[in-house]
């Protein structure tokens, strides 16, 4: 009788131990799953933020504003007879990506104003106070980067 009781007790203890082991295994699986889900969410969030920041950085209107001002400053500091070459690789790539039909329209100089068009239907213009004429402007594609080349001449000479 006593032996039977002992055997029963042992069996019960073994079963409980076994169940605990299984629970632990199940717990590890749950934890792993939870961590994977959190990690996935964090990665999706990070990628989304990076894509958004990059899209803002390469925004056509912002880049067009920046380059119009930068080129106007270069003209303001120039003297008649100067030939200026500016790295315009980034805006030209954005313009091509945005499907600006006429590539000669990306940059334009008229009435003491420089205009940059990086998206169809809109261009950004900025004036330069230097009383000169900008002529012979052209984009040189792939030398090895795309550059804008133009000449600054005195107004009275034309």
């Amino acid at each position, binding site marked *: 009788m006593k032996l039977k009781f002992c055997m029963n007790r042992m069996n019960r203890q073994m079963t409980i131990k076994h169940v605990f082991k299984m629970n632990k295994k199940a717990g590890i699986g749950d934890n792993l799953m939870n961590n994977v889900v959190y990690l996935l*969410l*964090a990665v999706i969030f990070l990628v989304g933020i990076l894509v958004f920041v990059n899209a803002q950085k390469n925004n056509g209107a912002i880049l067009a504003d920046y380059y119009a001002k*930068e080129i106007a400053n270069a003209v303001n500091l120039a003297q008649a007879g100067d030939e200026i070459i500016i790295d315009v690789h980034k805006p030209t790539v954005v313009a091509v990506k945005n499907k600006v039909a006429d590539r000669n329209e990306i940059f334009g100089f008229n009435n003491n104003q420089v205009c940059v068009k990086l998206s169809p239907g809109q*261009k950004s213009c900025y004036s330069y106070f230097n009383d000169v004429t900008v002529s012979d402007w052209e984009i040189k594609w792939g030398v090895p980067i795309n550059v804008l080349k133009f000449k600054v001449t005195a107004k009275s000479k034309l």
Partner: protein
Amino acid sequence: MMKNKMNKKAESGQQVMVFAFLFLLVLIGMGIVGGVVVYYGKGADFRKIDSEILNYRIRECLSESINLQQFKENFSSLCSLNKTVLEDKGFTIKVCQDLSPEECANSKESIFELGNTHIQACFINAAENNPEYVKCTKTEFFDKGEKFSIITGSNQRIARVNT
């Protein structure tokens, strides 16, 4: 039975934590998006650089001109500056003799003055960080034994044209 109930409670607790995590991500995301929009939305402000270049050009031109009368009469051609652009695009210029820039701004006497903006705005400390105010450059220099003050300001904005 009891254990199962406890496990279920723990599981539901963990599931609820996902919402807290998502809420945190949304909060951080809103902060980053807001920051990026504010930073890139304003665009680069070149007005201070404009006013510095203009000031430099006038200084060079003033020291190269033979006399003040010549400078006054032929300012535009002598300095190679386009008067129409300066007047229409929110530029301000004031040149004085024997005065400090601050005295020059308040004085009615000047060698040369151009623009409709109140030049006194260049001396308002609070205006430094206000994007609506004109961005100025003030210089004082000596040439041929004479003291000159040049105040230049730019309030030119980018023009977005629909094509």
